[in-house]
């Protein structure tokens, strides 16, 4: 909100501007949710609890910020959950083989990059819908994981590696620090660079983007590489958190991530979305889960609530779009 006051054609108060920015329409219910949960059970505001929520959110958020690129660019990536497992398993196997930790981490991320590169090339060069390519990849990558592990967990992993998922730096979980750094980076790339602008253009209208001199193939490939890398990294962090790489890690992650993005106002139709929105969306889901525990509501209701919120969030988004696009 660093827009200069009295700038060109800016009108209305802070709240109105906020609610008109569709991606942040969720901000108001988000604050409300925090207040309600906090009032019902003040334990919510304990530092430990907050750090716990942040840590849980971080895993989803790291993939979520990459998924924001994918969705804004008009695509979809269903393979993230399987790539997560693959990244963890590759890193885990490397560690068991005695490779230094930083190289193992790099290999885990690299596995994601390779898959992303493949997804991106197939989507952009062969023009196969991303839904189909990444659905196939979701099965394929999971299969690779199962072949590599025969279904067995990969452990024990070195303590120093596990620090990445379990440790704290200056009282803050390492995972949260990683997520924060990546989040800021992603936000800057998406809003301040030519690449970010190209992603928005691509998702809004591919043909116009191409005719305006944007290298749409390269932009598309990078989108999926980013998403693969983020998934691989999250896999490494998840393995570190659990002190073992599991072959079924990240099952269902793709839908959880997409749900977070959508709740955060990122459009399924491409061309709009924000990292900040995704952060709020992901946190929203985790606070609901956390809040329901704190409020002693059965966890069995959790999915129902999240489902209802997704539908509401998309409903609000559609309503806003309709209202804004009406003049003419």
């Amino acid at each position, binding site marked *: 909100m660093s827009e200069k006051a009295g700038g060109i054609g800016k009108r209305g108060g802070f709240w109105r501007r906020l609610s008109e920015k569709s991606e942040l329409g969720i901000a108001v219910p988000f604050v409300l949710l925090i207040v309600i949960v906090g009032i019902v059970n003040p334990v919510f505001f304990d530092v430990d609890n907050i750090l716990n929520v942040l840590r849980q959110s971080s895993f989803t958020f790291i993939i979520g910020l990459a998924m924001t690129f994918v969705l804004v660019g008009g695509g979809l990536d269903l393979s993230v959950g399987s790539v997560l497992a693959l990244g963890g398993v590759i890193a885990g196997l490397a560690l068991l083989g005695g490779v230094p930790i930083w190289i193992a981490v790099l290999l885990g991320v690299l596995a994601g990059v390779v898959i992303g590169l493949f997804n991106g090339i197939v989507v952009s060069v062969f023009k196969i819908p991303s839904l189909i390519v990444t659905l196939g990849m979701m099965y394929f990558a999971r299969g690779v994981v199962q072949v590599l592990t025969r279904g067995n967990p990969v452990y024990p992993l070195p303590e120093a590696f596990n620090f990445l998922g379990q440790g704290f730096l200056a009282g803050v979980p390492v995972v949260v620090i990683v997520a924060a750094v990546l989040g800021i980076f992603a936000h800057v790339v998406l809003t301040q*660079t030519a690449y970010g602008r190209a992603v928005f253009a691509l998702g809004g209208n591919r043909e116009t983007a191409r005719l305006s001199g944007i290298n749409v193939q390269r932009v598309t490939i990078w989108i999926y590489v980013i998403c693969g890398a983020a998934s691989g990294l999250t896999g490494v962090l998840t393995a570190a958190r659990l002190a073992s790489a599991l072959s079924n890690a990240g099952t269902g992650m793709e839908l959880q991530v997409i749900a977070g993005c959508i709740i955060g106002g990122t459009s399924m139709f491409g061309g709009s979305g924000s990292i900040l929105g995704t952060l709020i969306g992901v946190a929203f889901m985790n606070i609901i889960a956390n809040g329901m525990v704190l409020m002693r509501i059965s966890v069995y209701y959790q999915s129902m609530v999240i489902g209802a919120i997704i539908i509401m969030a998309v409903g609000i988004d559609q309503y806003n779009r309709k209202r804004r696009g009406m003049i003419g």
Partner: protein
Amino acid sequence: MDQVVLRMKGISKRFYAVIALREVSLDLRRGEVHALVGENGAGKSTLMKILSGSYPSASFEGEVEIEGEAVAFTSTYDAERAGIEMIYQEISLNPELSVAENIFLGKLPRRRLPWFIDWKRTHALAREALAQVGLEVGTTQAVRLLSTSQQQMISIAKALYRRPRILVLDEPTSALTDRETETLMRILHSLRAQGISCIYISHKLEEVFNIADRITVLRDGSVISTTPRQEVVAARVVEDMVGRKIEMMYPKVQLPVGQEVLRVEGLTVPSRVPGRNIVENLSFDLKAGEILGLGGLVGSGRSEVVNAIFGSHRRSAGRFFLDGKPVALSSPRDAIRCRMGLLTEDRRVSGFVGTMSIRENVSLASFRKIFGPLFIRRKTERWEVQELSGQLNIKTPSIETNVLNLSGGNQQKVVLAKWLMTDVRILFLDEPTRGIDVGAKVEVYNLMTELARKGVAIVMISSELPELLAMCDRFIVLYGGAIRGSFQREEITEHKFMSAATGVL
């Protein structure tokens, strides 16, 4: 004849701060064709969306009466039940369904057991409906396979079948061929005899003067005048529309032509049918400050020529020389690097990005300018776009406004601004004035002249012969993908042009 079927009284509608309609009143008599004209953004569509129930009665001020009774539509369904049918400029058929299914969509004839469809009767009735509009297509054919004009005729057949009391036609002829337009005019005459009333929206004033009983001009959301046909003066209507006297429709200034900037040799564009070409072995040159008219009928390969040069359409052969030096143009990126720009035929499909603001759309092709080594230069971007927006007179509260909120003419100016921001030397304009209002057209012509003065070379494609002849210095007329005639401005006549375009010459 004088009985009033529809009366809209004191209709006002606003979108946030923008007033779309201000105290508009309109009445429609039985059996009357009432034309509604005005620039894009004048409020015609908004008014019709109120009539069709797209804007529910709570969202605007004023009253709508049908046959003297006040009505309050809450949805388009209510309006349909009241006997109002709409035919839109953009075709709203389901492309995957058959012709018959489209005509009867939602009202398919049933058998005695009402959950079974009586297909035999459906097709028989569909044939009748098609006969009424003189269209000869199979009723089982998928609409997707038909031409745009055939689809438009089906929309008309569909609306007529529902026996409306009031028929609203929004730019119905923009997709029709001349013959079909004639058929439509005949149909409208016969509707008049049947006592069906029509509201007819069109940019083509000739058509309006031909068919309308009364003409209402809207401007900036207000009714400027309502005139019976007998008293209509064409010049007055145009003046009412734009609110100023149009001294000169085509502000053509003859300018000295400079050096050759682009030469095209042996351009060949393959067709989807193997072994055939849309454009064959085409060569021409283009000079600085020149406006070259690329003429021909639809399908002659005009659009393909410019798209193939720009790298946005496949080509199988062709060499290009920029300032006499050979250049490789294999993608729009290359073309933009050579300071070329292409305004495409359909701005919605390939001109602007609907999810972006004016600012983002205008700077879309100028990343080199607005992005530093890493980050965006916000001030540069805002300042440059603001400047262009003012220069092109884009009517908007702010450059942060979404392009979709602009009228067609202003959207077109946004696309033009995008190319101006790249400092184009060669500009391809494919139907630059399609679907924009008179005022915006004149602004586009002015801009073209201004650019030519600065030495920009322009290739213009237009289906509107008068504007093409008036604006260009030189003409190349295509027929079947090859040059059939080339003329200088001094020697061209409509007759010569059409002879070449139809292959008679």
